[in-house]
């Protein structure tokens, strides 16, 4: 079937964004109807906190990635020793596995909490976001550098330079803003998904407790920490009972909603974000 370009069905990215939002709304309505009130509030708070934190990760990554990409470009041509030093520092940061880097950030957070610093939930969320952003922002840096390198070889870059247009303007406006928005958007979608994955994984890992004084109960509730709660784990384990008794499937959607909803939000969101990213790549021929 030949689909006309621009319609929702042919735009996989838009279609999957609608499916994602629609799916979450349906889940919210279902939980509102069948999940007990305290648990429903907790799921809502966890979702809000996760989305907030991941959005913040996304913004910080864009900021750090854009700034470092441009800084490296200018250092490479104007100050070679500083360029090499900065590249070395960034490579050291890059060599730390993302999950380990995030864990280190949580350990530092625990240290702060132990000394009474970062007590508000907002500041804790901001710290978590900053930590995740620090381990993922170099993906944006690489993209920015790749785009600059590609366009620097093209004639229009030289043509604009020879007309006296400032190099930073050509890079920021002409290359990154006008010609790389789709690439950056696609990268940010994948960073958003990475942030959800990292945060959930870390929250699950630290559910055992980070110190005698600090545990998950000190942190703002997120989808990962909610999933790590005993109630949720039992809800997930309940899936196993379907293997023994298929008729128990009904109970999953009415009695084990907290864990099932949390897991569903995480998995469904990651899947939709993957499809959105794939759709963007296809639509913009990235």
């Amino acid at each position, binding site marked *: 079937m030949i689909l*006309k*370009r*621009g319609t929702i069905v042919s735009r996989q990215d838009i279609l999957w964004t609608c499916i994602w939002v629609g799916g979450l709304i349906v889940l919210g309505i279902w939980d509102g109807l069948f999940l007990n009130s305290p648990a429903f509030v907790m799921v809502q708070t966890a979702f809000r906190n996760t989305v907030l934190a991941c959005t913040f990760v996304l913004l910080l990554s864009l900021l750090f990635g854009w700034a470092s990409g441009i800084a490296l470009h200018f250092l490479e*041509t104007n100050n070679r020793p500083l360029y090499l030093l900065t590249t070395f520092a960034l490579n050291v940061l890059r060599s730390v596995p993302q999950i380990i880097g995030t864990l280190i950030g949580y350990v530092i957070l625990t240290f702060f909490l132990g000394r009474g610093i970062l007590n508000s939930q907002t500041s804790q969320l901001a710290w978590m976001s900053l930590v995740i952003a620090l381990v993922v922002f170099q993906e944006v840096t690489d993209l920015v550098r790749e785009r600059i390198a590609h366009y620097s070889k*093209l*004639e*229009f870059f*030289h*043509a*604009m*330079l*020879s*007309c*006296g*247009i*400032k*190099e930073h*303007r*050509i890079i920021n*406006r*002409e290359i990154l803003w*006008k*010609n790389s928005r789709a690439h950056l958007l696609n990268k940010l979608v994948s960073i958003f998904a990475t942030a959800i994955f990292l945060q959930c994984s870390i929250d699950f890992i630290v559910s055992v407790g980070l110190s005698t004084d600090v545990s998950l109960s000190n942190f703002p509730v997120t989808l990962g920490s909610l999933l790590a709660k005993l109630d949720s784990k039992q809800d997930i384990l309940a899936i196993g009972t379907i293997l023994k008794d298929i008729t128990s499937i009904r109970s999953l959607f009415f009695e084990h909603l907290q864990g099932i909803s949390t897991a569903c939000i995480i998995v469904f969101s990651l899947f939709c974000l993957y499809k959105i990213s794939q759709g963007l790549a296809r639509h913009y021929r990235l």
Partner: protein
Amino acid sequence: MKTTGYNVRIAVDDRVLVDVRGFQFSHNEITVLFGESGIGKSLISRALYGLLDPDEFDVTVNDEPYEAYLNRPEVRAIRENSFFVFQEPSSHLTPLMTLREQLREGSLAKAPAESAILRELWTQEESREDAAIAADKLLDVFPKPHRPSGGEKQRMFLVMALKKIDMVLALARAGKECLFVFDEPTGSLDNHFRNVFLSLLLRRFKAHPFTVLLITHDYSIISEIAHAHKGLRDKIVFKELKRTTQGLILEGFDGETYTGWLHRQQREPSLRKNNTSPLLSVESRSAMFGRELTITRDQTGENECPLEVYPGKIVSLKAPSGEGKTTFLKMIMGLLEAEQFRMVLCGHAVSHESAGSLWRHDIWGKRMTMVFQHADEALNPASRVKEIFEGLPIQETVTPDMLRKHLGRLFDDELSEEFLNTRVFALSGGQKQRLNLARALVLRTDIVLLDEPFNGLDFESITRVFSMLSELQKEERGFVLVSHNEEIVRALVPEENTYFLRARNPG
């Protein structure tokens, strides 16, 4: 004389690429079709020849669907007894077969031998025997991006077309439909080979007329026909595809309009003012990419001299294709790192050792600028027309009125708000080229380097560029011009301001 008119509409999705009513050409005549680059000449000719893919393009010819048009008996006959010479030969030669095999492929296997045509199309200064040997050696080559050269590939395509003409001439005599389309057949050829091709084509046409559609930007073909093929003047029709407010229209083009205009442009030898120092003086010898570049006064390579541009003067730089003219201009512009290079620009010494900041702060857009050869690549395709003028180092803020006034010197009635908001990728090649020129010429630089500034322009645009350059000359600005269009260069630049560039590999 049988004349066929076509209404052609070509679209992709919802975007109309071409919509022309009354596109006419006469049978058994040669129609030379001019028009600015990107206006749709190639697309229309491909559609009429039956080369467009109905799955990719939404095409109607005379308001009937493309499939129906393709199934018409005369269109099927055209595809059997005709030939299409493509604009870009590189992409239409297979790298898996030698040129010899491709010259004898398909229906060409039945055509007469190609040796006589090859000899003529390869003969330049050397003897005809040497030319035949050189061409014969080339036939065993598998085409690659850079070998044979663009000109050789183009000539190879012309050999195929001429072979096919020889083959179908008998059919043409019997009244069969034939159509030979030559899409920019001389774009990569110098004047000598262009003239050889014209002679070969017109000799066959004289023997028995057939239908030819020759698409070109090269208006100097008019002079060549007027000069060397006077007898056929009545059988050759010049037409121009133009964009108007009513859409695309095909108009007759009077060759004398061009020749008369050209005659009026002949410049007086420029008298150098006393005590005037050049705006730009580039030392005669420079080196780049391991090659030595030398500026001379004579084509032979003798009389080495610095390239000097005085206020209000245009100098032309000539060299064979691939010699490094563009590289040389980019070197002057400081866009490529030279191994050895010295110049004096407005009294300031600049060399290959000068700091990059000198170019950024004092030269680019202030003392000197450059118009790049390919407007398609020189402009950001994602920018809107009005955005092209943002960020330039000029005192005044670029207001829409100022922009309209400036662009009005190169454009005419296209300057609506909608046009100013159009993205560059949606413009035709000619519009891009004019925009490319307009951006460089709005700057108040002392020197402007012009690399093929007439590429893709129609006649009217060329005259506009000429008058704009004349005005800027009066403002004492200097120009370095590189253009393959020798006739136009001769009209613009006096002999004494012509320099030659020679490149050689040391040792």
